[in-house]
């Protein structure tokens, strides 16, 4: 697990260096005498503010005080190819004092844990035949086999791909997330709902 807090504060060159390990799951360090390859399997989690002051998009109206070009500059630290490699974007709105104090009625973590464990078991059981233990490790050519898309899901994928001009990599990533959503729900095939939800999680709005 690699967690980068305030990811937009990192120099762009450092972030771009993550592209190879993210894609190939290994790091090649080239020196004069030799090139050494290290394994680098990790899940990248990054946190960022929407703008330098952190108030952009807040419900309370125009709380953000950043000039437009500062926002653009800030957000462009994370390049398009890097964004393309991020599967899920979750917005975390500020909680009002009332919501904080009222106590939450959310699902307890222990329940979620049970679901996650079941999904993982399902993944490794299915993957045992092809030597893949997690959905994230599925290669492009294995994906279609494993996902067993129903016709509705297939339609959704092609429609979204056309509408938002998705790269092949992006489509594969959506399928991996969709497979995981179906696993969490205990479904054998990846349905239209799972694919659509995967798109929503990607934050792929044009």
């Amino acid at each position, binding site marked *: 697990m690699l967690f980068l807090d305030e990811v937009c504060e990192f120099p762009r060159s450092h972030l771009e260096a993550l592209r190879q390990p993210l894609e190939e799951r290994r790091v090649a360090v080239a020196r004069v005498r030799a090139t050494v390859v290290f394994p680098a399997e990790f899940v990248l989690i990054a946190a960022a503010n*929407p703008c330098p002051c952190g108030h*952009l*998009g*807040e*419900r*309370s*109206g*125009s709380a*953000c005080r950043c*000039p*437009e*070009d500062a926002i*653009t500059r800030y957000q462009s630290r994370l390049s398009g190819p890097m964004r393309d490699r991020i599967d899920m974007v979750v*917005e975390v*709105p500020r909680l009002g004092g009332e919501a904080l104090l009222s106590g939450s009625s959310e699902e307890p973590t222990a329940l979620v844990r049970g679901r996650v464990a079941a999904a993982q078991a399902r993944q490794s059981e299915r993957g045992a035949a092809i030597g893949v233990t997690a959905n994230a490790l599925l290669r492009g050519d294995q994906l279609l086999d494993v996902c067993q898309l*129903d*016709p*509705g*899901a*297939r*339609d*959704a994928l092609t*429609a*979204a791909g056309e*509408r938002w001009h998705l790269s092949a990599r992006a489509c594969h990533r959506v399928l991996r997330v969709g497979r995981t959503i179906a696993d969490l729900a205990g479904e054998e095939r990846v*349905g*239209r*709902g799972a694919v*659509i*939800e995967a*798109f*929503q*999680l990607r*934050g792929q*709005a044009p």
Partner: protein
Amino acid sequence: MSRRCLVPGGAGWPAPVDDLAALHPSLRVVSLWVEGEQSELPELPGVAVVGARRASVAGLEVARRIAGDLARRGVTVVSGFAEGIDAAAHRGCLAAGGRTVAVLGSGLAVPYPRAHQGLRTELSLRGALMTAYAAWASPLRWHFPHRNRIIAALSLAVVVVEARAESGALSTARWAADLGREVLAVPGSILGRSNDGSNRLLRDGARPYLDVADLADLLPPSDAGPPPGCEDRRGRSEPPQSSGGAAPGQGGVAAHLLEVIGAEPIPRELVARALGLGARDLAVLVGEMELGGSVRTLPGGLVQRVHGPGGTR
């Protein structure tokens, strides 16, 4: 790029500016610098669309729509090239194939605001930038009230979108009133302070702007009709998801969702509560409708209805 200096009575001088001198001799504008590739200025007077620099998503959408409607009537859109509403008005006009004039509070050689250099290029190709200041004049604080009265003078009417009580757009409206131009304001929410100024204008007797028909008596009859090539109805009528895989009975919920959310972006959790849906079901529903093009999601967890020209579908 071509820059030129206009003088009163000379070729290309926009005569409506002289109304300022009629108001008081000290207000006379003695020269205007113009940047634009076309040899003639867009037709003036036009209609000014002005408002807050820090505008809400909805406000920007409103400004874009008003400017687009004006452009389709063949009316020049005048604004102040500032961030927010002003820029949205210029963009909306250009996108509808219209012509627009930006009046600056700085010299033509000063790249201000910096974020707008792309817009500037487009504007100088298909409209004009205009200023009373010499090439290298900085955008100083007291330039803007002066700029505002030029905007008012160049317009038949001033439409104010989303202005706070202290907004410079109100000074444009005041100048417009002094010059005998019509002042209109788009009514806004009374929650928060972002519409205080424009709503107060309404209370003080400004005309409410609800659609372009509110300007009809001021504009020349639209004999020209919409200019050809303006992309209104996009040709691709999208069939509403006819695939067999869609969840059954979704049509009803989808219609309900469209009723719940309006053109104003609203938070997802409110939608979920209104429809009695869990976060997952809502994500699937919204995703489905986003794919169909009837809804869009915005930063901050907001959803908004997408209005095709003339309503939905």
